[in-house]
């Protein structure tokens, strides 16, 4: 495709300046992410993962909420379908985030674009969208800011998982409650006012009923899909 001068796609560049700017602008955000990464490392270790396994997960998956959910669902033997299925479902929001990048990223080479999106996380995506919408043409900003998130997230996981190995009985320090507390905090963050009440109420009721009726962890997927479906049905009314 040859881009005519009249093409409305922004003229995006991909270079070191954008990479560096993205990294440096994201460092304060990445510090916050690191605190979270330490918590993930401790909880992963508590769930029975080794330091190497927890670190591998942070390095290759790079999705905080999905990783915490995987650790919550972890058991012996690992419920593979439930873990991978739930991770996929909770990450579907990235589809929308990737779509939002399209107007800028269609000017990048496929290699630049598809390498960059690996480093999409909620925090640096928001930072990048702000940057691009304000008129910046730095296509490497997502990659740079994502590398900041990635490096801090992986390093923090190593620290947390190493520390988590020496904790001993987690209940003595109230750590058995930590994962619940983290999910409650995420829920508070995701709450968007009264319109959230119907999908969340449905999800809660279906999850509790499914958990009572079906073995295993199916209640997570059943509750989540029921909750999301109410949003679709309400739009039809």
């Amino acid at each position, binding site marked *: 495709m040859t881009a005519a001068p009249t093409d409305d796609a922004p003229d995006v560049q991909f270079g070191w300046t954008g990479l560096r700017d993205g990294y440096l602008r994201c460092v304060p955000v990445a510090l916050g992410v690191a605190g979270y990464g330490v918590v993930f490392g401790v909880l992963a270790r508590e769930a029975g993962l080794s330091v190497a396994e927890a670190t591998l997960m942070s390095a*290759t998956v790079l999705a905080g909420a999905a990783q915490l959910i995987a650790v919550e669902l972890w058991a012996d033997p690992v419920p593979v379908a439930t873990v*991978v299925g739930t991770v996929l479902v909770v990450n579907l929001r*990235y589809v929308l985030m*990737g779509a939002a990048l399209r107007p800028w990223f269609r000017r990048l080479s496929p290699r630049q674009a598809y390498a960059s999106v690996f480093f999409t996380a909620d925090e640096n995506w928001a930072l990048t969208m702000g940057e691009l919408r304000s008129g910046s043409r730095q296509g490497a900003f997502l990659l740079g800011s994502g590398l900041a998130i990635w490096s801090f997230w992986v390093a923090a996981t190593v620290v947390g998982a190493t520390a988590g190995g020496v904790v001993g009985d987690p209940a003595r320090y109230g750590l058995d*409650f930590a994962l619940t507390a983290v999910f409650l905090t995420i*829920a508070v963050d995701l709450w968007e006012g009264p319109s959230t009440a119907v999908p969340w109420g449905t999800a809660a009721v279906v999850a509790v009923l499914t958990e009572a009726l079906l073995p295993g962890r199916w209640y997570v997927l059943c509750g*989540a899909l029921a*909750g999301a479906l109410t949003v679709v049905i309400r739009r039809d009314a």
Partner: protein
Amino acid sequence: MTRDPLALAPLTVGVVLAMAVATYLTKAGGLWVLGRVDLPDRAERALDALPGAVVVSILAPAVVTADPPTWLAAGVVVIAARRTGRVLVALLFGVGAILLFRGVL
């Protein structure tokens, strides 16, 4: 649990890599597909609602079947999270609260 910190169980590595592939597909999928088809507005809203619904589905059975110290500590976490907006602060309050309530109740 005394596992070798460097242990890499084949099954665990397989699950982690499957998680990585699933996650990458979502991250690259929007860039790939959504310029070609128009996603209905309500499908977009459903995708938007999913993370919250997943988190609530994980929490609901765990909290409903828990004990009074857990319910009280959960309340403390929600209040701390709303007031400060910081995960670590809310987490510290929650862990402190569960230890306190377990000791008292």
